[in-house]
């Protein structure tokens, strides 16, 4: 980068902060004072941000995986995750478990919901790939992107329709478009209190489960991509599709497999978020998808660890902004930081600077 360019970037970053700062309550002495007064609040918010970031990261995996292999931004992924949450809710509703029942009663429904929603979403994602993306694979870049937006609209409407099926699923409530309550099945034991530590910080088993699931998924996916034969084929396909085909890799099958894994992850994420946030609504896919996509880009899209990093960064930033600035401005801050980071590292935090393909 030339020197004058970086000076321009610094000026731009400073301008953004100067512009946002005063109106959004950026008052460093006050913030430092508040942190000094109760460091426990800071730690609590970091924990909240970490767990929220893990959830964002799980959804971001689906974006990263698909982008990594066919350079398609799968805008339908967020809505696929929403359908996963609906499938899970319907499943849990069929077992008729009550809100707040003990873990033993919820275990079987949760397992059933996991299987059903993963299989359902994986199948749906493969169908979308086969009939909405594959025919456009050699078309100009924008065509599959638009097609993905179309699939996203279809999914949203399916969600709205599903929410009205109260004859089949009474758990959907009286109104198709209204948010639905997801039964609270995960145990919530305060770990720090159980360990005998006297503090006002709460960190429950529920939070821990989300973190553990996120980390297991990241590690598992990383191992799969790096150390198995299909994983190797996926990497080869990502690198050069034609060369991979010459080497005897069935490219179509490998891409279908990628969508299958991405879909299964979306289904699992739907269940997990339903269990964690306890609310499901047909519009939830868009917001979550936007944040996850941002996290994937921030971490370096195509990079699995990057998705985790980007997700956690976004989660922590929003939590801190909610605490020390103003919730009204949280989104503005998150995206301002995103712009600044991408200005200096266009490929994302862990992204490689991809050579321009000519």
């Amino acid at each position, binding site marked *: 980068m030339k020197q004058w360019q970086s000076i321009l970037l610094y000026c731009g970053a400073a301008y953004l902060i100067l512009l946002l700062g005063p109106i959004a309550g950026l008052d460093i002495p006050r913030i430092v004072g508040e942190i000094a007064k109760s460091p426990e609040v800071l730690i609590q*918010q970091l924990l909240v941000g970490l767990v*929220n970031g893990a959830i964002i990261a799980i959804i971001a995996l689906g974006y990263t995986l698909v982008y990594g292999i066919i350079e398609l931004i799968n805008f339908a992924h967020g809505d696929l995750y929403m359908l996963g949450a609906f499938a899970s809710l319907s499943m849990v509703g069929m077992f008729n478990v009550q809100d707040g029942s003990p873990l033993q009663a919820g275990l079987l429904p949760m397992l059933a919901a996991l299987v059903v929603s993963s299989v359902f979403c994986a199948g749906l994602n493969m169908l979308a790939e086969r009939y909405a993306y594959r025919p456009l694979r050699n078309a100009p870049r924008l065509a599959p992107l638009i097609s993905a937006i179309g699939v996203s609209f279809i999914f949203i409407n399916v969600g709205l329709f599903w929410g*009205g099926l109260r004859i089949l699923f009474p758990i959907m409530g009286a109104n198709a478009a209204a948010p639905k*309550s997801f039964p*609270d099945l995960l145990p919530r034991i305060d770990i720090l209190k159980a360990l005998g530590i006297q503090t006002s910080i709460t960190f429950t088993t529920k939070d821990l489960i989300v973190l553990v699931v996120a980390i297991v998924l990241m590690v598992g996916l990383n191992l799969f991509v790096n150390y198995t034969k299909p994983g190797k084929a996926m990497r080869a396909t990502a690198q050069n599709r034609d060369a991979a085909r010459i080497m005897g890799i069935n490219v179509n099958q490998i891409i279908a497999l990628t969508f299958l894994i991405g879909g299964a992850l979306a289904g699992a994420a739907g269940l997990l978020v339903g269990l964690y946030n*306890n609310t499901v609504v047909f519009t939830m896919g868009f917001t979550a998808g936007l*944040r996850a996509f941002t996290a994937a880009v921030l971490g370096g899209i195509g990079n699995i660890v990057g998705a985790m990093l980007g997700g956690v960064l976004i989660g922590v930033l929003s939590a801190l902004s909610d605490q020390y600035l103003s919730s009204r401005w949280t989104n503005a801050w998150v995206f301002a930081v995103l712009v600044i980071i991408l200005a200096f590292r266009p490929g994302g935090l862990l992204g490689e600077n991809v050579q321009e393909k000519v």
Partner: protein
Amino acid sequence: MSSPGSSGPLNRRSLIALTLTTLAIGVLASACQETTSSGPGSSPTGSAPTSTTAGNTVKIVSSLPMTGSSLGQTQTIVNGIKQVLEETNATVCDGKLKIEFEIMDDATAAAGKWDPAQVTSNANKAVSDSSVVAVIGTFNSGAAKLAIPILNSANVVMVSPANTYPGLTKPGKGEGKEPDVYYPNGKRNYTRVVPADDLQGAAGANWAKSLGLKRVFILDDQELYGKGIADIFEQTGKKIGLEILGHEGIDAKASDYKALMTKIKALNPDLIYFGGITQNNAGQLVKDMRNVGMTPDQVKFMGPDGIFEQALIDAAGKDAEGVLATFGGVPGSQLQGAGKTWYENYKKKFNAEPEAYAAYGYEAASVVVKAIGNVCKNDRAAIRDAVLATKDFDGVLGKWSFDQYGDTTLSTLSGNMVKNGKYEFSQLLKAE
């Protein structure tokens, strides 16, 4: 990639296209069904097209969101209007003037709620149909802002059963040049039968104080209605000695509010007041305040009539227990006298509990029908003046008048609380 040259995949593809189209049509059809289930099929009450000339037929239209999540409420408003027309046989002036009724939907499936373009188009349609003399609607205050000026320049009177934004009628309570900007021809053509938010916000603050709640954190959904009522709650709260810990706008689309609730929890409040509607994530707010450990006996949650509906309880599940909601009036089941009779009739006729605004739909239609009866001809300006001149009206809500701004003189509001998965009336509230 295989090019779609051979006929095999092409056929398969067209088959899939056909399936998808069918699916899409199915989804659309089901959406439409929701729209029309109330409507045109069973519509113009008692007004089979007869050979009467336009001279002795007038029309009133309703413009309400009949698509999406407001449907539960608007359906009962329409039922209330139909009741009035049925009871009067849809005629006034000893049978000389017939009244037709048309239902318009100001929401679209794409928006999922009221749509500005649809509101404007409905108003223009009403104006261009010379038999239309009155509009009953809208449901949302934001929609009223658009409809009033269009109807105003054509002298069509509008009676709202549900708008509560103060700036629509009262000078000094809204922004800038409100309310005069809505009345370009200089004459008022808008009234409402429900008390405005300046009363409801104040009543909420007074109720909080009477319940012994002192430390309050205020949230709003950053919309016209929600922020407006939250601001009034804050002003009144400061006046009567509540301690306001903070006031923030939420991102209505966020997936959770744990960080925000953690912050609020550290401030140790007695009450969280949310100015906003269920559709802007009120259920998630309630869930997350419990999720971060604010227990129902320590911290209460209160909102305005925007959360006074079953949808909130569906969204918040067991965490909804104990949620408080003010309502700019009295629930049907608590009405006295004529109101009690109406409530019984409604339940018998529609075989269902009326939602909160049904009585207001009934009252709005009664006022309009009575005004038409006083004028006895198709004269928009005269009917407008007759509605605005309504004094000492003896309706189902009690005895009331329109003040000089077109607002009802009723100021009795109610406080309601969720008990066993249902909103229950808890007490009458006064704004003062």
